[in-house]
């Protein structure tokens, strides 16, 4: 983790000192505030002040075990940031599912760990549809998380892509006939595209 600080050599101290810039603990909100406040300082005194403060990301270097640890940590941080919108029991069980999914002993070393951009899409999807039932979790070899729900013989599988995009596959039985459908859409449209398949069967208890 690193911090960049630009000093005014005449005064010998950061020019943002007239603002109360908090200690950067590295959380998303604090990092953003520190960045914003230092930008404000820069704008207020452009002739003498250039400052930027932030954390470098840990990155995907290191051993597979470290990469998986970092992926778990990034996912849990994202869950933590919306913890007030999640039921405590739901959240604990979801944490356990993530630990199992990203378990070093079970992980195929050819696969990429789940990316935080894919996980962000999953979390935003779950909060949007207010799923009472937690999905089963899986992952693609290129780091996309997969959520799957089953209701009897009917199955919904969603692959979470970055930027709120999803690929979905439905297997649905109607009057003894097996029907399947698939598509790609944004999570904002998920309720509409799944409405012909009675999506509540997967999300409600």
């Amino acid at each position: 983790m690193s911090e960049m600080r630009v000093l005014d050599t005449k005064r010998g101290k950061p020019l943002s000192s007239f603002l109360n810039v908090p200690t950067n603990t590295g959380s998303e909100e604090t990092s953003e505030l520190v960045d914003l406040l230092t930008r404000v300082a820069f704008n207020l005194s452009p002739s003498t002040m250039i400052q930027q403060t932030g954390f470098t990301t840990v990155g995907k270097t290191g051993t597979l075990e470290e990469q998986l640890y970092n992926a778990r940590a990034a996912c849990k941080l994202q869950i933590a940031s919306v913890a007030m919108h999640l039921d405590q029991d739901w959240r604990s069980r979801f944490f356990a599912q993530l630990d199992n999914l990203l378990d070093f002993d079970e992980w195929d070393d050819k696969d990429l760990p789940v990316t935080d951009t894919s996980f962000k899409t999953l979390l935003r999807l779950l909060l949007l549809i207010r799923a009472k039932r937690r999905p089963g979790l899986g992952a693609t070899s290129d780091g996309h998380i997969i959520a799957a729900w089953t209701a009897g013989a009917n199955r919904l599988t969603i692959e979470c892509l970055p930027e709120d995009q999803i690929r979905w596959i439905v297997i649905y039985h109607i009057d003894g006939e097996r029907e399947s459908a698939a598509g790609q859409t944004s999570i904002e449209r998920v309720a509409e595209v799944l409405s012909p398949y009675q999506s509540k069967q997967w999300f409600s208890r």
Partner: protein
Amino acid sequence: MIAQEVGLTELLPSPHYARAPITEAVIELRVANPATVKQQEKVVKRLKKLYPRSEAMQAFSVNVDTTGGTLSVSQSPQGFRLTNDDQTGVVLIQPNGVTTSRLPPYPGWEALRESAQIVWDHWKRSTPRQPVNRIGVRYVNRIDVPLDESPTIDLKDYLQFYPQNPCLSGGYMIGHIIQVTRPTIMPHWTYSITSTIKPPPLLKHFSVLLDIDVFRKNDIPSKEEQLWNVIDEARNIKNDIFQRCITDKTRELIS
């Protein structure tokens, strides 16, 4: 204008909110003379069981001589950032003190205070005794407001702390950052409130941050028990400020 003149004579009580919007709660203690890297490493080692993950922090200073045009870059160690297994507990061990931070789910003041006491205790055991010269309690709140049909909200409906600006266009506000720093109604304490809009983590929502920092730089007790009583005071002041900054609509959202 003094506090009594505007009717501020006592702190408001704080009700319990089922969905408290706290995204980070922090207790910070700073000391006058910096600890050495070795001493900081000792604290890290002592805390390893509670905070197994540690990263070294580095500061890069770019010095710009604005008259001569010369530029130099230097790097210096800035301490360590420790995290617990589930990433909800963060500790900064820095040359000038310790910061204990808790991310959601917020476990309550007592748990945060206890974590901070443990960290402080290990710091004291590993560094030379010296007076505390700044204590601070800081809470970052993120209020997520659901959007119905409108693409934005009127901040006044949710916060008593918002930027005032003349109506220059029919467009809605897409960004702001404001900070106010003033003494509190309690002696020795200063508060700093910062607010900004941030991208909402939830779809079809509008999110605004309300960061409340309460700190004190003088008359800090040297006795341990009194020190923590004083830190408790900061928490009450912070609660009072939060109550005064929000509206009933926000109370409804977080209850």
